[in-house]
């Protein structure tokens, strides 16, 4: 499912009204800025800490993107391998499910201890969270080929490889992209959670680390600014993946899918 903003005016208006109400409420009730800073203060904090925060945004995005690419490749490849042989699916899928259902907060400390490179550890955490939707969706897709088309391939004596590349893989493509869009959000969550767990050890300098840091120092406007960037990153990832997938599906499937 793709959410498209056909007309950006209503949400923009609502946003303005909410921001005004927020600022008004903060001033009216004299809420201290370490409890709830107004939007003006947040904007100021963002402006003042821009180099630092954008740097951190980049760090988080980098972790997320590397994990997402690895999830896309790894998930699709694993699905492909599993669809080749039933015994492979039976022996591998349970472990994929275990990795999926175990809360990442619980495994992250171990991974951070075991993996030397902080970057690699964070990527690994984000990957573990992100790869399953791609895997599960692609697997479903590979099995969704029209039975009549499968019969047709069989009738003409197609090899397993031909059926897989010319029928099953193209059929799976929309499923893969649907999985990828879910994985995009999850990869970001995975990266942030892992950074939180890694804590203020000094290794990580992503946005989650900035949020933690600002929280400890009671720099609440800065915390809000970091939060804002984080949401922005999420939206950015979702939008990019949506555009990418509709572009790819347009090319492959025409506009009916």
């Amino acid at each position, binding site marked *: 499912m793709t959410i498209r903003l056909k007309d950006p005016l209503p949400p923009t208006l609502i946003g303005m009204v909410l921001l005004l109400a927020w600022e008004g409420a903060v001033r009216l009730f004299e809420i201290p800025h370490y409890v709830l800073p107004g939007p003006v203060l947040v904007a100021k904090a963002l402006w003042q800490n821009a180099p630092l925060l954008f740097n951190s945004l980049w760090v988080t995005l980098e972790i997320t993107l590397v994990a997402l690419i690895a999830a896309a490749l790894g998930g699709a490849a694993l699905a492909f391998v599993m669809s080749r042989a039933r015994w492979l699916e039976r022996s591998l899928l349970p472990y994929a499910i275990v990795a999926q259902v175990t809360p990442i907060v619980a495994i992250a400390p171990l991974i951070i201890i075991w993996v030397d490179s902080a970057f690699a550890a964070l990527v690994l955490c984000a990957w573990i969270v992100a790869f399953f939707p791609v895997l599960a969706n692609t697997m479903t897709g590979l099995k969704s080929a029209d039975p009549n*088309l499968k019969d047709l391939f069989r*009738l003409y004596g197609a090899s397993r490889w031909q059926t897989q590349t010319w029928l099953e893989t193209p059929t799976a493509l929309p499923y893969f992209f649907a999985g990828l869009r879910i994985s995009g959000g999850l990869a970001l969550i995975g990266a942030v959670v892992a950074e939180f767990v890694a804590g203020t050890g000094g290794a990580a300098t992503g946005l989650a680390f900035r949020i933690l840091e600002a929280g400890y120092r009671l720099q609440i406007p800065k915390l809000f600014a970091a939060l804002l960037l984080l949401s922005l990153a999420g939206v950015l990832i979702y939008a990019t993946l949506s555009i990418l997938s509709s572009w790819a599906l347009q090319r492959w*499937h025409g*506009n009916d899918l």
Partner: protein
Amino acid sequence: MTLSAKPLLTTNAISRVFPDGTQALDNVSFDIPQGSITSLLGPSGCGKSTLLRIISGLDNASAGDIHWQGEAPETGEIGFVFQDATLLPWANVWDNIYLPFRINGASREAAKAAIENAVSLVALGGFEQHRPHQLSGGMRMRVSIARALATNPSLLLMDEPFGALDEMTRFRLNDDLLRIKETINCTIIFVTHSVFEAVYLSDKIAVMSPRPGRVIAEEDIALTSRDAAIRSTAEFAQACGSISALLTESEAP
């Protein structure tokens, strides 16, 4: 035509019991005359599709066998037209028709002449670059027929190919099929629910009983001509009437 020609194939007491115990076919025996259009006519669920699948090699009989006059056809020598067009949605018309050649390892160049010929047989010239979703239901069916014909099969199996189409389109495609049949040398087994369609198209009709399917009558049809005008003649009505009577008889317990 006269059906004195030797049968292309004879089904020999074919039965099919599915693993869940459903008996679809029971001792089906009949001939398919070489070069004919033979229709399988019977109520829904009587095993017509199952029978086609067994003849094509997609399914196996539980008992009985098929006797081929001469060599049994090799892979790729049988064309199959399914009830829906069954096209690759992401591929254009040309690529869809190319599929059997591609599976067989033929280059696009090598397949070009055969594909162009098939496209013109079904009158789809100019639509080669269209994708299935850009075509009407009737046109999609024609692509499916072109794909089956392009490889020049000796046997063409058609499983209610026009069942989902409106009557106008169906009539036109019936005429197209008869016209195409004139120009190619192949035997056609045609499954249908429609008595009129069966009588109009066929040299021979095998009437089947309700499940478990048996062939209860093999009727040769010898219409004096096959064109739109014949549909309103007494001769046509009479042929339809006698086939209908056989069907009704078969439904009676």
